[in-house]
């Protein structure tokens, strides 16, 4: 039983990791919390659903199309809520503006797709694999591979590519990075796009995994992503991924051994405890605490 819970938790955690790393990227580079990210994730899920069921696209094509659309949406949110909004006042103005954008997206989604749960069609042959004590469905396998593949790709992008280097430079000291010739505005646009893409993939994968999506999932699953991000250390992408795995497992264990209805609270309970004793998060560095 425990192995089954662990693997289920890791699968759930990998989708959370996709969602959370989007938040972490934006906090890390720009010190901006984009709450519309949660609803970008929800829109991504619905776009995936539409592409699969209405436009009859194959699953992977729909996944890519939905994630690109979400990326573009995230860039749009950048222009409405961040590019021209001054952050000097209480440093929450862009944050509030992004919440309001999220509200608008939520209304638009419930007008288009209805407020009830929509079933996500099964687009691939569902087979069960028995590996020792663990049962793994082909859906779970796809989610696991896609999510973790993307995580590795993101890690490589951040660590080895020129863009990743520029991104990390902005994260350390944006003024100095710009003095040294990093084109910050272009990198920022790129970061928003990538975060949107990750949210879109996470949305489609969660819809695929649970079989149902609703317009309000941005406010539940999406907000959970913020908690996980803080848990991992503000703006620390790798920390966010690890924290997402931990939370995925913790949630599945809570649901399995305690009560399914409290699974949504576990993230926040752990988060508040961690903030009490280690305000920088589990993997917070000196830079993140000082900012």
């Amino acid at each position, binding site marked *: 039983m425990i192995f089954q819970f662990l693997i289920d938790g890791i699968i759930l955690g990998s989708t959370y990791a996709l969602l959370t790393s989007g938040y972490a990227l934006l906090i890390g580079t720009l010190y901006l919390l984009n709450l519309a990210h949660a609803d970008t994730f929800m829109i991504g899920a619905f776009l995936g659903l539409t592409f699969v069921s209405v436009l009859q696209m194959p699953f992977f094509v729909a996944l890519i199309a939905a994630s690109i659309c979400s990326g573009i949406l995230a860039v749009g949110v950048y222009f*409405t809520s961040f590019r021209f909004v001054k952050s000097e006042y209480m*440093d929450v103005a862009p*944050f*509030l*503006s992004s919440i309001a954008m999220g*509200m608008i997206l939520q209304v638009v989604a419930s007008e288009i797709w209805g407020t009830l749960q929509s079933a996500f069609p099964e687009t691939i042959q569902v087979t069960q694999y028995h590996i020792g004590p663990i049962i793994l469905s082909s859906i779970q396998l796809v989610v696991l591979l896609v999510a973790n593949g993307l995580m590795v790709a993101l890690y490589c992008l951040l660590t080895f590519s020129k863009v990743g280097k520029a991104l990390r430079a902005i994260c350390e000291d944006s003024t100095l990075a710009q003095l040294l010739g990093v084109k910050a505005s272009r990198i920022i646009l790129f970061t928003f796009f990538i975060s949107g893409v990750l949210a879109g993939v996470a949305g489609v994968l969660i819809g695929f995994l649970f079989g149902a999506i609703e317009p309000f999932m941005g406010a539940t699953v999406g907000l959970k992503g913020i*908690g996980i991000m803080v848990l991992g250390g*503000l703006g620390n992408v790798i920390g966010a991924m690890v924290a997402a795995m931990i939370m995925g497992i913790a949630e599945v264990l809570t649901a399995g051994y305690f009560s399914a*209805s409290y699974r949504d609270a576990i993230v926040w309970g752990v988060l508040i405890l961690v*903030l009490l004793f280690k305000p920088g998060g589990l993997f917070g560095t000196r830079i993140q605490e000082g900012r």
Partner: protein
Amino acid sequence: MNLYIAGILITIEINVILALSLYSVISTGQFSLAHGAFMGIGAYISSVLTVNFHVPLGVALLIAALISGGFGIIVGFPALRVRRNLYLAIATLGFGEIMRVVFLNTEYIGAATGFRGMKGTSLSLATGVVAILIIFFYVVERSRLGLAREAVRYNPDAASMMGLNVTRIKVTAFAQGAFMAGLAGGLYAHYAYFIEPSTFGFFGSLIILFFVIFGGGEVLWGSIIGAVILTALLELLRFTLSWRIAFYGAIIVIIMLVRPQGLVDKNLLNWISDSVRGMVSFGGSKRGE
């Protein structure tokens, strides 16, 4: 007065109390996304007291508000450890989400089906509470405590150098805010007859935050005017049905773009009082020229 107008007035007054409750947190430079939860605590406790234990409404409201204030202290202390507003937003968001799950899963208060049977909030009761709170803020802001809060808000380090107990001031303000939110929650429950957990979730906290941010968190009148205008606007937009939340969002996006400090700020208040003074002294002696 017809019932419809009275209903809108009561809603506006409850929202003004909510805005004031958040203003008391913001006036010490803090931030909260848990006020929906505090409102819920007040609403549920006062409802249980009046419906199940037949406690008089006034007493029930006071007890509920005190308990909510107690929760405010519990949340306020850890919140102090997180220095930046962004962290504070997230920590209070967490508390709000936990409370939502608790409301949703406690059978005694009806869980997801809600709790019903409360009545008793009248226009005069709500008006009385609003009047008391405004007088309270008016007195506090002109006292030493008000000065201390302003100091803590704009520079906590300097304030603590001057010998102010920053921790006590911040936690008191947070508890005071939670107390008022609990009071508003109790009034709301006994006006609405029926309460359910979803009212007190993230969205509830957001609406309260929007009142203050839209009106302007710098000054007392900002939050009051924000609550009045936004509540009235929501009522006027009722004909747009489900799109009104989107309109609401659009208004916030626009106000953040053009006036991030909110409609009313210190400059505007100074300008108004200057021009009023100008009008009064016009034609009289030309002092200062």
